[in-house]
């Protein structure tokens, strides 16, 4: 058990180290941020002063070393554009991304679970075939394009919902979020639905597969022979049993919602960290690019580490294999 956790931890650190090399090395090979930051009429002395100030005159290895040392101190450098710490900028925008991802997770579950149960409960019916066909279509539709269509229909044509920004922000239990005001909710609805689309398709398939398996179990036959109503069987016996695996998988994939929110945030001008990274790439704001990528990679590496460790508790086979290594 312990050696298993130890190897995984060492691997996570190795992954982070390789990523930092890759990201830092790559970012420093691209473009010339000085050109974008300095007034084109500035004289040579001014240019040199700025280069020295940003530390760009030192060798790349030295810059990398400073970056690593400072990263351990929680300092990922200052944004070239905003002049503020990159970490602070990202943390400021994190709540917007989190509320978008959470809300879209909520939407996808309440839409997909009933549809998935229906498709698994009556696999041969016409409606089920339409649901399953729709889920393939959902997989195939490029998210950003659907977002554009949403804006066109609901914002431009009908003018029902706003298509940009985060709206009013309310405070509840000390948390600031646009989910707490009506105006904020109207702003979050379209982007969240857009981000949920892909997840809806996958949860429908997962729920359907789970339902089809459970329906063959003895306890469902037993419940039927007891004379329970079909409604009770579906709502209690089936729903409760598929919820556990679905919540596990969806919870694990929460990270992918955050990664994909870069696209949705750009389409809907949602002021989250996804839009920040895309803007920073355009502006060649190296510290923000590096900081964002390192934060999100760290997040994923540790998420996976926790999942791996949890599995060793849940599945003895993993434990035995890990010990014998």
């Amino acid at each position: 058990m312990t050696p298993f956790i130890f190897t995984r931890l060492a691997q996570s650190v190795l992954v982070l180290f390789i990523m930092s090399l890759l990201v830092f090395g790559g970012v420093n090979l691209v473009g010339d941020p000085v050109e974008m930051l300095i007034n084109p009429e500035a004289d040579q002395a001014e240019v040199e002063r700025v280069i020295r100030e940003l530390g760009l005159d030192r060798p790349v290895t030295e810059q990398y070393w400073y970056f690593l040392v400072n990263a351990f101190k929680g300092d990922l450098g200052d944004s070239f554009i905003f002049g503020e710490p990159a970490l602070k900028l990202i943390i400021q925008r994190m709540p917007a991304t989190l509320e978008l991802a959470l809300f879209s997770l909520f939407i996808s579950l309440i839409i997909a679970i009933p549809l998935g149960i229906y498709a698994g409960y009556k696999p041969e019916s016409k409606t089920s075939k339409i649901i399953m066909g729709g889920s393939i279509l959902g997989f195939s539709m490029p998210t950003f394009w659907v977002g554009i269509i949403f804006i066109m229909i609901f914002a431009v044509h009908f003018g029902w919902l706003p298509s940009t920004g985060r709206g009013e922000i309310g405070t509840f239990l000390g948390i600031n979020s646009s989910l707490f005001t009506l105006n904020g909710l109207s702003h979050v609805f379209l982007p969240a639905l857009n981000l949920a689309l892909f997840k809806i398709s996958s949860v429908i398939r997962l729920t359907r597969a789970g339902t089809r398996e459970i329906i063959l179990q003895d306890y469902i036959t037993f419940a039927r022979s007891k004379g329970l109503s079909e409604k009770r069987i579906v709502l209690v016996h089936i729903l409760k049993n598929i919820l556990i695996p679905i919540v596990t998988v969806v919870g694990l994939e929460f990270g992918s919602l955050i990664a994909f929110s870069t696209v949705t945030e750009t389409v809907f001008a949602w002021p989250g960290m996804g839009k920040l990274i895309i803007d920073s790439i355009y502006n060649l704001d190296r510290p923000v690019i590096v900081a964002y990528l390192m934060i999100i990679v760290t997040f994923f590496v540790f998420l996976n580490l926790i999942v791996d460790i949890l599995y060793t508790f849940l599945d003895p086979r993993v434990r035995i294999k890990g010990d014998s290594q």
Partner: protein
Amino acid sequence: MNPKIKKIKEFWKDFSSNKVAVVSLIVFMLILFVAVFAPLVSPTDPYDLNTVSIMNSRLAPFSEDFSGNYFLLGTDGAGRDMVSAIFYGLRVSLGVGVLSGIFALIIGSFFGISAAFFGGKYESVVMRIVDIQLSFPSILVALIILAAFGKGVEKTIIALILVQWAYYARTARSSALVELNKEYVDAARCLAFSNTRIMFKHILPNCMAPLIVVGTLQTAHAISLEATLSFLGLGLPITEPSLGLLIGNGFEYMYSGDYWISIFPGVALLITVASINLVGDHLRDMFNPRLH
């Protein structure tokens, strides 16, 4: 009858049992034809500055310009015919998607089969890398590459290969592990064939079925991902106008109600990706022994 022809006939009989898959295959063949022969089938050359006139910018679908040129799907902001732009865009999108898919297939099956064949430390290292990579969402992997190294055709293709190879490696390894227990592999070993020959002449052909299934679904995914990246301005440069770039170009005009510039390239993208997915989905059902 030649056993090969017989096999193909049997395969087709099996495949054509699903009408949706057959229609999807025909649609995909048409798209492929249009993409390959784009310069011949397009009404105009959208990137020839002599024929494109800014006077025709943002004409609605079904409209004509003063010299009687007909624009079925309208024109974009620079006055290009949308039909032609979409045909050329399909060429770029499919080209990038298929090319990256082939490279990923080669790299992935090489590592997958060799991992299964040699086993030991080599296998566990390769499969650990695969696992780690698959724990990151595809868009994040692509974002890391393109954010760190900048945009461009080669970089987009490299990013797409990196996103896909792990899926091929995992599939190739699991089918190779099954094949390794079969008698023909023992026979080949007794004949003292080289490892390379056994791996790629004997085992690889028998792993092709699942690899093809993964290949269709991954190619659809790669095309869609490339469109997303190009839309974000991170993927292909404007000199290679893929469908994603066309959609992105139309985005700015959408608020003024010029819907066609974004919508039609998106429809083309959707049809392409959906037809490949539907064919792949059916192939997966066909090759899945649990459903027979």
